[in-house]
């Protein structure tokens, strides 16, 4: 019994160390998502981008309290054929951005990508106009659940510019965490700009 627990503890420690090794600080101030896409963080976040499964090169993931409690995805302009979530195998494809998607299809792309991240019962609502540096886009809210049944709230934003798709997406448990950092996230969204 004791040896079984010891093995389990070693496994757990190994997994958590592997995760810790990839986290860096994202201090308050400008955060370059890409060479021409920048946001301003109002406080220090942890940059957990390197821990994303498959490490998609255009996706950044920031968190304050850990990825289960809040996560902010900032996605550099996706070209047609690119994705937010990398497919684990050929027969389990994930949503891909295409040129010529309608506005509702762009929101659907984020919603389906959220499902592909492992969330269930993902729904979007409250679609509204948004813009980054004068380029029109769409804001929307997200509701989802973790597989364990925890209610998740979120808000997202998509903007197409020169044939590329820029995405911001914030997800956190509905209880406490979503509201706690929403003002900061709103400021980050409002600060998004192309240079």
């Amino acid at each position, binding site marked *: *019994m004791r040896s079984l*627990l010891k093995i389990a503890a070693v*496994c757990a420690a190994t997994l958590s160390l592997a995760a810790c090794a990839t986290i860096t600080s994202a201090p308050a101030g400008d955060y370059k998502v890409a060479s021409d896409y920048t946001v301003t963080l109002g406080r220090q976040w942890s940059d957990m981008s390197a821990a994303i499964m498959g490490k998609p090169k255009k996706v950044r993931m920031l968190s304050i309290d850990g990825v289960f409690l809040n996560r902010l995805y900032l996605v550099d302009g996706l070209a047609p054929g690119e994705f937010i979530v990398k497919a684990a195998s050929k027969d389990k494809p994930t949503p891909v951005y*295409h040129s010529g998607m*309608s506005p509702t299809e762009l929101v659907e792309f984020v919603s389906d990508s959220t499902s592909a991240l492992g969330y*269930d019962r993902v729904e979007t609502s409250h*679609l509204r*106009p948004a813009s980054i540096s004068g380029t029109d886009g769409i804001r929307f809210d997200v509701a989802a659940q973790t*597989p*364990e049944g925890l209610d998740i709230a979120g808000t997202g934003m998509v903007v197409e510019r020169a044939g590329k798709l820029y995405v911001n997406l914030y997800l956190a448990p509905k209880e406490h965490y979503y509201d706690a950092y929403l003002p900061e996230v709103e400021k980050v969204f409002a600060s998004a700009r192309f240079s």
Partner: protein
Amino acid sequence: MRRLARVAVAAAALASSATAYAAEPIPEFRPHNIRPDVHTDEGGLWATSDEVEQQIKASSELDHDAQLTGYVREVACKVAFDYCNEIRVYVLDLPFFNAAMAPNGGMQVWSGLLLRVDNEAQLAFALGHETTHFVRNHSILAWRKAKARTSVAMVVSLVAGGAGASILGNLVYLGIAASLFSFTREEEADADRYGLQRAQEAGYDPAQGVNVFRSLQAEVAASDFDKVRKEDARTSIFDDHPNTAARLAAIQEEVKTLPEGGKLEKERYRAMIRPHLGDWLKDDLRRKDFGESLHLIDHLLEQGEDLGVLQFYKGEAYRLRRKNGDLELAQAAYALAIAQPDAPAAAWRQLADVEQSLGHADKAKTNFEAYLAKAPDADDRWLVEASLKKLSAGEHS
């Protein structure tokens, strides 16, 4: 961590008790209402099953439609006969053909199965199959066979899996735990045979069991993916099933030994799943195996009901697949959908979007306006109004 400790206790009970109790005889049919002692290997299996069942109760996949769950339970009871009070049914909204029976009587029925059986008789066969696993003690039989083959490594992998579960997600944990309850080919064949008999004794047409496998085989053959077609099996947390062709052949032989005829209850069954068709098809499309999804939708369309909903999702499958010519196919399916009284309002918006992409501005304008008339409070009203403005200004996309 508390979950890990509880699983470790159950796993340790399994590991330590297996040798001591391996010789204990297993009855051909389980005695009624007996919970095995926790210090036995079977007691350990039950404890682990209890843990998994608690996870299911909290799971986001659990379907909360009490009427649907009540109906599935009613059919399960018909084929369980006097074991009815020992079985608990959970409907999970998971888009794969699957059902599962835990050793403690917890039965999972996935929405992908409910979407793919045509009538109550087919459901009765599937639930008769699952009930047989419980009644015939398949879990403990399978465990002891596996134990004889593999040693304690399997138990350790369960505990390690439990540790990682908080990181890797609930389904991974359930999958690892489920490996404890996987059945051998012999037990699956036994469950098919007794499942047919139970369905027939409950008054259902046993030949419907054959149709379940035929449909499954045809859908797998339509998959977009070579791997799926070659494996001849659906995504399942229980991966030790005999392949579909072998099971179909065996069932065809078994059906010949049973009295012909019996009830189907097709209308009653469809009425029960009708409110869920849209949501389940939407889930199915998220798998992105459009070959299978289109085959499934065509199969449902052949039954001549719910044409508006089904044509809408056929259009959605083509729109999402995006192969050459798919926009035109989507347009045709949406057009058929809006001619039906049960078409969802979104069918008009999707049709208009496709028509706008294809350069049919007048048609797009008409259908955007029809959408707004049918869904005046739609969340995307401002987007549709913007599209109408563009169309009026002569911009087509």
